[in-house]
């Protein structure tokens, strides 16, 4: 090429200048665990299903949800949704109504008749599950999805366990349980009712089962010694709640005293109110701070007119009254008697002092250990006897439905690995996407025109008197409030804010990629990523 005077180079594009060589730190995309997912006892991938729900893909969202938990409609009503307590949006305005969106998705699935997709291959292995409660059903579902043949032996006449016999109807309508259990049965899981297993090894051998998952729950009410007159009407919470399922509702009278401080005590007190009690009083030996029941349940109970007698124990029960003794907390926070007594009118006393596990079916199983009334399991959910796994309320853990469902899933994965002659290793956990990882500037405040309406619905949805919960527009709104902590939601910010055009947009659903030929490592993409899905790492020399 003929060059003008004093010109020695060809004119060209700056693309020849690879500015990436300036870099000492490089940005990398990553997924962090959102606090909600991290918190969920059932291991739901909440952010992922909200992401799908945000675009109105409710079936996709539901399918993502049931990869981890087959009971969204039940969860949407009965789960204690600790996820919302962990939600980063709570530090911004108020937590995302995860539970109400789950409720909506669960109801939508029932209304639209969405079914699970049967696994393509079967393994030919037979697994016995004992107990058709949340944990047993969850394990059965996951085992069936992994291709195993599953039979459940249930001592009672109906499925659901504590979901049916422990949770009052005002919190969980029974047709919801039936619909979600039916979906598992449709998957090929066989449930044999009214069959109490008395010797697990015998049953396992007779049925030719390759592995067993025990999830019999804790159904035996704990008793406390209370001197009571012959005519005193003393009941236990488990049988009261169970008899709510039968034809004859329990006769509690007009003045009901419930003894205990857990969620069950509150359920009974609220049930008594609904059965027409004029006075429903919870007697608890410690104070509100020490109460094991969830505060929101207590709050709802108080709104409904349930009374609580704090720092009191029942000393004596008579025909129409009880004697309580006032307590005082000592330095260590334990209640100590004060010697002051008081009389309360009471037509009946319901003891809600916790439940024990019926361990008769595992008596004499070699290797299996029981400690503090619960079955000991290892990290793989397996008892000391090879091939026998256990979960739910009968193993040491917090006792609630969601934990039970989580146990079922975990056990199913371990049983599957064990049946294949291996050990299940959970994928490594990423770091948690804390609030400090977010750039919350980019999340707009929810518009005032919609918020109050939503608030009312949110409040209503926690009571089951209100049918339905969120409608579609509200559910969509609520889903879109998700901050997508730690996971890219394709907002294009990194792509836009790079002064060097060093971010490549790969297209919908594919995310982005860095062009390290030109990335100078300034870090703007990291600091302007709303959800904390990029981080800087030192360049290797």
């Amino acid at each position: 090429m003929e060059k003008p005077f004093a010109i020695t180079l060809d004119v060209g594009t700056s693309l020849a200048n690879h500015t990436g060589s300036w870099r000492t730190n490089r940005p990398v995309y990553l997924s962090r665990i959102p606090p909600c997912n991290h918190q969920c006892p059932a291991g739901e991938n909440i952010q992922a299903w909200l992401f799908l729900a945000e675009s109105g893909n409710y079936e996709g969202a539901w399918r993502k949800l049931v990869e981890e938990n087959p009971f969204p409609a039940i969860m949407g009503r009965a789960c204690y949704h600790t996820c919302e307590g962990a939600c980063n949006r709570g530090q911004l305005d108020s937590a995302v109504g995860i539970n109400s969106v789950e409720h909506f998705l669960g109801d939508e699935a029932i209304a639209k008749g969405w079914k699970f997709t049967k696994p393509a291959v079967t393994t030919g292995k037979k697994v016995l599950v004992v107990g058709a409660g949340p944990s047993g059903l969850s394990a059965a579902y996951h085992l069936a999805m992994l291709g195993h043949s599953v039979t459940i032996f249930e001592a009672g006449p109906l499925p659901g366990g504590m979901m049916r016999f422990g949770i009052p109807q005002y919190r969980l309508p029974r047709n919801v349980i039936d619909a979600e259990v039916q979906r598992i049965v449709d998957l090929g899981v066989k449930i044999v009712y009214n069959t109490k297993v008395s010797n697990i090894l015998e049953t396992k051998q007779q049925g030719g089962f390759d592995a067993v998952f025990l999830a019999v729950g804790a159904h035996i009410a704990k008793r406390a010694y209370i001197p009571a007159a012959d005519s005193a009407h003393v009941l236990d919470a488990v049988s009261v709640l169970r008899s709510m399922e039968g034809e004859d509702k329990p006769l509690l009278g007009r003045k009901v005293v419930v003894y205990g401080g857990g969620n069950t005590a509150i359920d009974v007190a609220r049930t008594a109110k609904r059965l027409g009690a004029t006075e429903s009083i919870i007697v608890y030996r410690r104070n509100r701070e020490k109460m094991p029941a969830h505060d929101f349940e207590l709050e709802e109970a108080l709104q409904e007119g349930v009374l609580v007698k704090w720092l009191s124990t029942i000393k004596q029960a008579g025909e129409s009254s009880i004697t309580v003794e006032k307590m005082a907390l000592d330095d260590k926070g334990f209640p100590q008697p004060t010697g002051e007594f008081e009389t309360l009118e009471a037509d009946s006393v319901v003891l809600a002092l916790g439940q024990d596990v019926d361990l008769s079916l595992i008596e004499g199983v070699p290797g299996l250990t029981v400690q503090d009334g619960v079955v000991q399991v290892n990290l793989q959910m397996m008892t000391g006897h090879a091939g026998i796994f256990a979960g739910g309320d009968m193993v040491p853990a917090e006792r609630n439905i969601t934990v039970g469902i989580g146990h079922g899933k975990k056990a199913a994965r371990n049983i599957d690995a064990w049946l294949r002659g291996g050990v299940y290793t959970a994928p490594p956990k990423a770091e948690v996407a804390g609030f400090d990882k977010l750039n919350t500037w980019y999340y707009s405040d929810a518009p005032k025109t919609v918020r109050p309406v939503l608030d009312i619905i949110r409040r209503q949805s926690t009571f089951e008197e209100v049918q339905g919960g969120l409608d579609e527009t509200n559910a969509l709104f609520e889903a879109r409030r998700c901050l997508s902590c730690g996971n890219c939601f394709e907002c294009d910010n990194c792509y836009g804010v790079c002064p060097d055009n060093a971010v490549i947009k790969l297209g919908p659903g594919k995310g982005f990629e860095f062009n390290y030929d030109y990335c100078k490592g300034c870090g703007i993409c990291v600091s302007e990523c709303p959800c904390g899905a990029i981080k800087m790492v030192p360049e290797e020399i």
Partner: protein
Amino acid sequence: MEQSTVKFYQTGTFTVGNRLLAPEQRSVQAGDQRRNSLNSGHRACQGCGEALGARYAIDAAMAATNGQLIAANATGCLEVFSTPYPETSWQMPWVHSLFGNAAAVATGIAAAMKAKGRSEVRVVAQGGDGGTTDIGFGCLSGMFERNDDVLYICYDNEAYMNTGVQRSSATPPAARTATTMPVGPNPGNDFGQGKNVPLIAMAHEIPYVATATVADLRDLEYKVTKAMSIHGARYIHIFVPCPLGWGAPSQDTIKLSRMAVESGVFPVFEAERGEVTGVRKIRHQIPIEDYLRPQRRFAHLFGKHPDVATIALLQARADRNIRRFGLLD
């Protein structure tokens, strides 16, 4: 302003793009086919606000004119880092003449296009604050008063960064530069000096004047697009932080311009024929210290004995902007 009509609850219109928005509602920068008028390989520092602002503005102008755009560039960082001979980062017709004559060169290009009957070809002139508010100011004022059909874009990083951070008439009071008092009772730039070119442009009663920042892409794109829909002299003043000259971490470029807006230091508004027609309100007001503290050019105001009096004066300037433009609801 118009762009706030797009309602999206999760991120509003604050992010660059959004998978849930219809394609026509997305920003120019979110498009996978965006022009990248200022392409990769330019030699701007890490985290350069001017490189970012220039791509935002010129891409939007290119989109608005269907690529029929010619740029005249003043001397300055933008010119130097984008075109070290024989390379160019510009994917458009681009001309550089002198430091002070970008507005005049653009006027000439516009006149030439008119003479040739190429009415579809539009012209932008661009420069830094030095080339605009100091050296090129005479040409700029002339372009305004003749109402030439040029959009002049000033990328304001508040000093002559290219030559080593010398003070310009856009340097804020108290900011330390290479040519302000380094020591003494009141180090840094003096109070009571400098000029506000957007207001001077408004005084020419030209069709359109606007200010914008790299922290609000949608606002910037809206203003450039609007400017390109108008014929006659137009002026857009874009606030572009300079990590090098301000002594700020490179990743804080957008954060600093956001804080400049949220503290009231830099009012974002638009005006037509001398009248303010729109103001971007402050969303979460912050004290001026939050904006000053991360910048080393203001470091002498902090430390063991904070210069409370000077900080208060700077806060008063921000408060005056808030009152004057009605930046708070």
